């Protein structure tokens, strides 16, 4: 039995503000549940629709275990904001069921986790709930998640397989590590597996290529920059589709494109060497990436400087922050590569900070899928216009610790 209390959400409809009683789930309750989930998904910017969402949350949680799977499934097409209204409801429902000694629907949870069409973050929640109730679920499910869209499930699957490889014979261990390297995305796992392959099995792997770093660039600069204006002070190169032209740069000096390649394992191009040490300066780096077919992609830049990213003349990301860290992929935009050549331009801006730790002017950029993995059918044009694999780097170098 479901006891319904008529309330005010969502706008235009008299619907439930309901609290559950034990019993069968009815069609009417399903409809009310949908309206409640819709109310949660309607939350917007700066608290929009919170008046409707708050009672809906309470009703959803009050409905108990029957609402667990619908709430999880609703995360699939919810935006991140609404996702947290739903996620917190799921945790509250699960907690209440545990207190009442009622088991969660393990079969449904497992099916939900295994269904790759569900949102990765929702599957992660379902996996955690399932594993808490059924610890054996980890061993059962993780081997299937080596190539999962959920970064956390993939990470756990790789960690579990790595642990197993410790007992394998050398040949099996090497083959296993190679398989795990291809699956790995997180920097620590990529690094650890690559190191094992190289040091224990004398089988080096291409980390630069694995990350699909762009390591051949046409660079031009310096142009004027000023902290606070990096995102609005535009210069001609960002609209270009080929590395041609001579420009008036910083201090009215003429600047022209130069080709630069980096053999840094993590794709870092040092602009203080490619151009020179400059303060209050902007540089542009242009690369041409070819695609065999239309390919949705992410364009990720690692830098401690202000950055803008352009794909075929369209800005896909920007951020102005200086010298607060150099986290891998901190800057990321999305776009669609068209078949044939695509022009990627990255603008990297330096400010005028004087501290010794604030002198780096450098970046690394890569093109990847949403998991951070390489995309098929892409190539980078080298200085002669010849296609080479993205990140192709036969002699990778590792930056010294004091240069990190």
């Amino acid at each position, binding site marked *: 039995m479901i006891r319904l209390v008529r309330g005010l959400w969502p706008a235009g409809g008299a619907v439930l503000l309901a609290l559950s009683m034990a019993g069968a789930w009815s069609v009417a309750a399903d409809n009310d549940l949908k309206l409640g989930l819709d109310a949660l998904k309607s939350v917007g910017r700066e608290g929009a629709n919170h008046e409707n969402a708050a009672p809906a949350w309470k009703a959803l949680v009050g409905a108990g275990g029957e609402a667990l799977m619908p709430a999880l499934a609703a995360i699939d097409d919810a935006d991140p904001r609404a996702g947290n209204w739903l996620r917190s409801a799921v945790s509250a429902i699960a907690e209440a069921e545990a207190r009442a000694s009622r088991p969660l629907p393990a079969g449904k949870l497992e099916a939900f986790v295994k269904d790759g069409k569900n949102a990765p973050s929702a599957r992660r929640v379902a996996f955690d709930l399932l594993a808490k109730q059924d610890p054996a679920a980890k061993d059962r499910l993780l081997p299937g998640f080596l190539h999962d869209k959920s*970064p956390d499930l993939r990470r756990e699957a790789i960690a579990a397989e790595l642990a197993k490889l410790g007992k394998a014979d050398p040949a099996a261990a090497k083959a296993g590590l190679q398989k795990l390297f291809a699956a790995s995305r997180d920097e620590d796992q990529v690094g650890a597996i690559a190191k094992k392959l190289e040091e224990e099995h004398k089988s080096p792997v291409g980390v630069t290529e694995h990350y699909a770093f762009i390591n051949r660039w046409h660079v031009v600069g310096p142009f004027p920059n000023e902290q*606070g204006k990096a995102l609005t002070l535009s210069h001609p190169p960002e609209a270009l589709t080929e590395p041609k032209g001579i420009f008036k740069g910083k201090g009215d000096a003429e600047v022209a494109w130069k080709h630069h390649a980096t053999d840094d394992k993590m794709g870092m191009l040092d602009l203080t060497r490619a151009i020179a040490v400059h303060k209050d300066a902007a540089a542009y780096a242009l690369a041409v990436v070819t695609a065999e077919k239309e390919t949705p992609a992410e364009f990720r830049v690692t830098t401690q400087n202000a950055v803008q990213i352009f794909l075929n003349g369209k800005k896909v990301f920007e951020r102005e922050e200086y010298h607060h860290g150099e986290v891998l992929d901190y800057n990321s935009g999305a776009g669609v590569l068209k078949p044939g050549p695509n022009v990627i331009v990255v603008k990297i801006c330096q400010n005028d900070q004087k501290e010794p730790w604030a002198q780096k002017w450098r970046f690394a950029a890569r093109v990847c899928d949403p998991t951070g993995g390489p995309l098929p059918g892409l190539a980078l044009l080298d200085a002669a216009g010849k296609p080479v694999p993205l990140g192709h780097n036969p002699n990778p170098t590792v930056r010294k610790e004091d240069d990190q």
Partner: protein
Amino acid sequence: MTKTFAAVVLAVAAAPAVAADWAQFKGPNAAGVSDEKGLPVEWGKDKGIRWKTALPARGVSCPVVVGNRVYVTCASGKRDDQLHVLAFDATTGRELWRRQLLATGPTSCHPKSSMAAPTPVADETGVYALFASGDLAAFDADGTLRWYRSLVGDYPTITNQVGMASSPVLVGDKLIVPMDNDGESFLAAVDTRYGKNVWKAARPKGINWVTPLVREAGGVTEVLFAGPSGTTAYDAATGQQRWVYKEAPGNIPTASLADGLLYYPAGGVSAVRLGEAGVEGKPVMTSRLARPGMASPLVYGGKVFTVDGQGFVTAVEAKTGKLLYKERTKLGEASASPVAGDGKVYVTSEKGVTLVIPADKDTFDPLATNDLGEEVLGTPAISGGSLFIRTDKHLYRIGK
């Protein structure tokens, strides 16, 4: 929300916390001072602990205590993106509820920090938890979600690769949310019932870890918020800027209000008198030897106490700035701010060692050195005659 429930929420939200509460970062108005008596002197891994309970993950935020509830935030996962809000029974340490969120903003930060760096603030109706990822949630005391906001969803340029740690505070039915960063920076008042902006004051871009202070000035409640360009006073009702004192910039440690003075950390510690219209005259006290480091200065018992990143514990006279002692202790680095009550000053290191110092002595003569053997970066809370210390693994109630 029913009208009755709403009325209850509003009525209770407006009610001040009781004296024993330690409802926000550094307790009542971030002073770090409790009026309670009978506070503990000695404890260790196996003694003096009333209860100890495991936490699901690390965090550097402080526990807060209101009524019989202790609230704690944690963050977990490789990306530090699993955000947890937990409530515990203060009497027994039993976990009452926990809720989980997923970070919607960037989660990079200094390795020492965490997405659970801002300290939550609570009242009798519930808790308001801000995370360094810009996720902000209000839960009723029973764990019901009152509202949730993604501040990075609302203001997408918010960014701070070092990680944010400024804590929200409550002024009546408004939650004051500090958000100084390298993108859209602001100080906002959010209504506690629905989480909507009451006002939002633009701030200069720049990262900052300071927590706002609150004071009454001529019938106006002011929010004082220090940033790179000084301390600015805002009308808590409207967000209108009232005055700026450029000589008191803020970065990491938070200032203290005591005896009509603002004790602020800036190349040491200085104090200026505050009148109804703002700062009056020049500093009445300055000590260059009292250096707060990461931890905020403590004003207590006529003295200013500081601890820095090398374990130097310093005490100066609050009125004159005269140095009483500057002792190089074996504490090592300290991120937690000193707190005080019952005539004792508690200085806790990152290694989980707490020095208990008598506040009335003009020489350095600790009463006890207590080692929990676990990492502590959050400032302890004082309530119910006990210290509540959150380590990277556990929440402890120490004392009676």
